């Protein structure tokens, strides 16, 4: 069995506890306008040309984004960071793209990680059939669950899919007591309003829940990627939230009893 992996990044410090290795799986069912990893959207490897300086000239080098790997190859690469996991209580984070798009491959990788006693984190958009979602979510040591908007219409407009399946998986995860960090991107013009955030907080249980909320202020950092991939960037007019806005958003969740972190 082979999966399509577009990056394995070591010393990832913002995707779960400790020092982590992030495995980026290619292919995503969503098309969020603000996506930070547009190179991971399509499920197949992509050939791109990259310009590189060499001796005063610029040379075009063919490069493939996405590599077909076996779970054992993934595990071998991840395990290079074992000493950092041990030192920090870190582990592996499956992200993407969307890991659930390659559910069998992710499951096989996950199994190898569990055999090696490595802490596993699933970073997911939550848009999957419940049984697909559960195959991975039920065994992950932590789930980073992206919650973008409660309103299905707006969700559809900005991400290409309705919010229903996402909310269903989220509610089921809460009910099942899965260890969760709900990650909410703060995007002006999309969900960064008091009203919207209050409604989103309402989805989460106010009491008796061990999960946390992680607010991710929108950042234009990925803009250059779109240029390199020759893709249009639909977010050119969107500004980055101010520190005060982020703090205000955090307060909405905090005053409802949630543990909140910002940035990531």
């Amino acid at each position, binding site marked *: 069995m082979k999966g399509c992996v577009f990056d394995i990044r070591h010393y990832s410090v913002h995707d779960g506890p*400790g020092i982590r290795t992030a495995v980026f799986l290619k292919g995503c069912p969503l098309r969020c306008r603000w996506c930070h990893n547009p190179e991971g959207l399509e499920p197949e490897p992509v050939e791109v040309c990259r310009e590189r300086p060499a001796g005063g000239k610029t040379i075009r080098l063919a490069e493939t984004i996405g590599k077909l790997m076996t779970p054992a190859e993934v595990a071998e690469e991840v395990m*290079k960071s074992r000493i950092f996991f041990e030192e920090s209580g870190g582990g592996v984070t499956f992200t993407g793209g969307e890991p659930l798009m390659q559910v069998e491959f992710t499951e096989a990788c996950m199994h190898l990680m569990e055999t090696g006693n490595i802490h596993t984190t699933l970073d997911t958009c939550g848009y999957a059939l419940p049984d697909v979602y559960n195959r991975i979510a039920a065994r992950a040591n932590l789930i980073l669950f992206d919650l973008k908007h409660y309103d299905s219409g707006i969700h559809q407009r900005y991400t290409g899919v309705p919010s229903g399946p996402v909310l269903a998986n989220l509610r089921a995860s809460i009910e099942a007591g899965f260890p969760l960090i709900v990650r909410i991107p703060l995007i002006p013009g999309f969900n960064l309003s008091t009203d919207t955030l209050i409604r989103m907080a309402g989805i989460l249980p106010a009491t008796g829940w061990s999960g946390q909320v992680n607010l991710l202020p929108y950042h234009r950092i990925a803009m250059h990627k779109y240029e390199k991939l020759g893709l249009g960037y639909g977010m050119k007019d969107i500004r980055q939230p101010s520190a005060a806005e982020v703090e205000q958003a955090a307060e909405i969740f905090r005053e409802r009893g949630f543990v909140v972190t910002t940035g990531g």
Partner: protein
Amino acid sequence: MNERIRLLRQNSLDAVNRISGERAGLVTGFYRQPSIAALPVPVQRGMALKHIMQHKGLYFGQGELIAGERGPEPKAVPTYPEVCVHSLQDLEILDSRPKVSYKVDEETRALYRDEVIPFWTGRCVRDHMFKALPDTWKQAYQAGIFTEFMEQRAPGHTVAGEKVFGKGMNDLMADIDQALDKLDYLNDMEALAKAEELQGMRLACEALVVLAGRYASLIEARIPAEKDPGRRDELLEMAAICRKVPANAPETFHEALQHYWFIHLGVITELNPWDSFNPGRLDQHLWPFYSRELAAGTLTKERATELLQAFWIKFNNHPAPPKVGVTAQESNTYTDFCLINVGGVKADGSDAVNELSYLILDVIEEMRLLQPSSMVQLSKKNPDALIHRAIRIIKTGFGQPSVFNTDAIVQELMRQGKTPEDARRGGASGCVEAGAFGTEAYILTGYFNLPKILELTLNNGRDPLTGEQTGPQTGDPALFSTYDEFQIAFRKMLQHFVDIKIAGSNLIEKIWATHMPAPFLSSIIDDCILNGRDYNAGGARYNTSYIQGVGLGTMTDCLTAIHEQVFRHKRYSMANLLKMLAVNFEGYEDELAVLLYKTPKYGNDDDLADVHAKEVFEAYFEAIDGRKSPRGAAYRIEMLPTTCHVYFGSKINALPDGRLAGKPLSEGISPVQGADRKGPSAVIKSAAKFDHIKSGGTLLNQKFSPDFFRDETAIVKLGQLIRAYFRMDGHHIQFNVVSADTLRKARHHPEAFSNLIVRVAGYSDYFNDLTPELQEEIIRRTEQEQM
């Protein structure tokens, strides 16, 4: 910092680096006396130091708490014509060069023209050396295969041990007298030489008492005119301190600092030893004074801080003695490499961190001075609080403190034969050099250009820069059919030049031992008194000579390129590769791009490349480790460059890793600038694949963007990264926390960035004081790979 410290610090920052002819004049006047030549050399040296201390100009600044300057005022730097006499042209270069200049006035030039140059030409150590060294050595030196540390500066590189804080000059003189009494002229054939050496030491100790007494008188003379009653009391106290130390052992915190400072001045006035001198484990040495006084109520934390700050400023007042020629290129900085150690373990192996460790870190952060350099020793036994505190300073972006692995250092020193206790009393000095503090003479003999050896191997011993047959014919690489054949040829070439370097060092060592002993330094380093032998002649308990390898990253990538692209995948023939190198890849840009971007590189935790790092390290180790020197030292290896990777790079044409002609080599054990594309943990994994314990120090530079530290967890996670590196026996790591963008701006608008400090290699420096090549090199290594 309070107003007094702010002013003292500002004065130090504002003072202009200049050459003072005072010492050169005094030492020349002393040696011109007809009676001197007949005296034993160590006695001459002891008397010369006493002569200088008796006659040098004194400086005692407004508000100072620690008295004493090496020159007539802050940043007035003396010269050492008995070591290396500067020509008038040298003085002109020092005065006018764009970077690391020292102003030279007309009076000094006249003194040099009329007295210093005529007297010392042909007499100084450097002239002795170059007269004695064989042509093979000179040819290799000129080709940039190695440098020589002892051509312009004295052996040193050493650090104070506990004895320095526990004994006064009177105690040392009693020890010396006892050693003199015990000399056995019947059975010991060296007894006379020992007596002469011990007499020299005694004179040198007397010199220090003379200097302190003169300072006491100077301060006493200031008292009547002092109107501020608070300052008056201070002056009374300081005068009393100067009457007491360094003649007697210190008893208070203030006395301990002043005591050390006089000794520091003694070492750097006697000669111009590399890395100046160094109080070493300052939090350990000062702890008894601090804790005792704090308990007794005679010292407050605030006063201790103020005294430490005043102490810090004294170091910053003392730039490195002037360096010219190759020495300037290999160590192009005002920094004089006094590296304060904080943390680590006690002699019994237990956690040594105390309240003073943190207080000293506070001082480092607040003073934000280039000198002294500072480092944290981190043992597995030390609390995380220590490394977290250090990282909070590191993230402010001035390159200090660097972080060292105590447990690795102890293992390194024990492998070399030190007792566990002596090893644990040690640490690192200079850039990254492991040493047993107070008991070891560990002398760096020069840098060794590993990629130049590769270039000579590729050209069958012919230097493509000069066309000369500089090395032996190790075979035409185009005829090699396996990588092993190439490797054997490289090892032959390496051994040839290591042998030339060692033969030269042996000869130079003997010249120093004979012509230029250091009796004062000897009196404070054990067991020179007991052995009746000079520091420069093997008198210390432990003796080590280092040859510092440069360009490990470049070497690794070159060997990987040859192995992978020539022998394994046969993408290019050796003949073709040599053709590309000969034309500096012009017209071969596609091939260059493959070598740069499609070939495994060291620093990415990729065994295809890293296996060659191990290969280079082992080859270098085997060529050098354990060879003996005349003073009884063993040669060992280190991997550090100061600024020599820039000079060495200028002596090499294009290389198989895609590095173009004349460009800097990689520094320390860091990857080639920009070649590490998988983040810091991959760099650390690569760097830990060879055995640091077999070295006496390795230097790893890491870059972090200031953005990395935007949240608190970054501090913890960087601490864990360091801990993981140290678990793998990594020796040292240091950080530049500045964006490439900031550096680029600073290059174009130097006036707006006059305070910007960056980490170079084993030390920090003002960005504006770096040569353009070094500025560019640091920008390249700071650049973050984007997608």
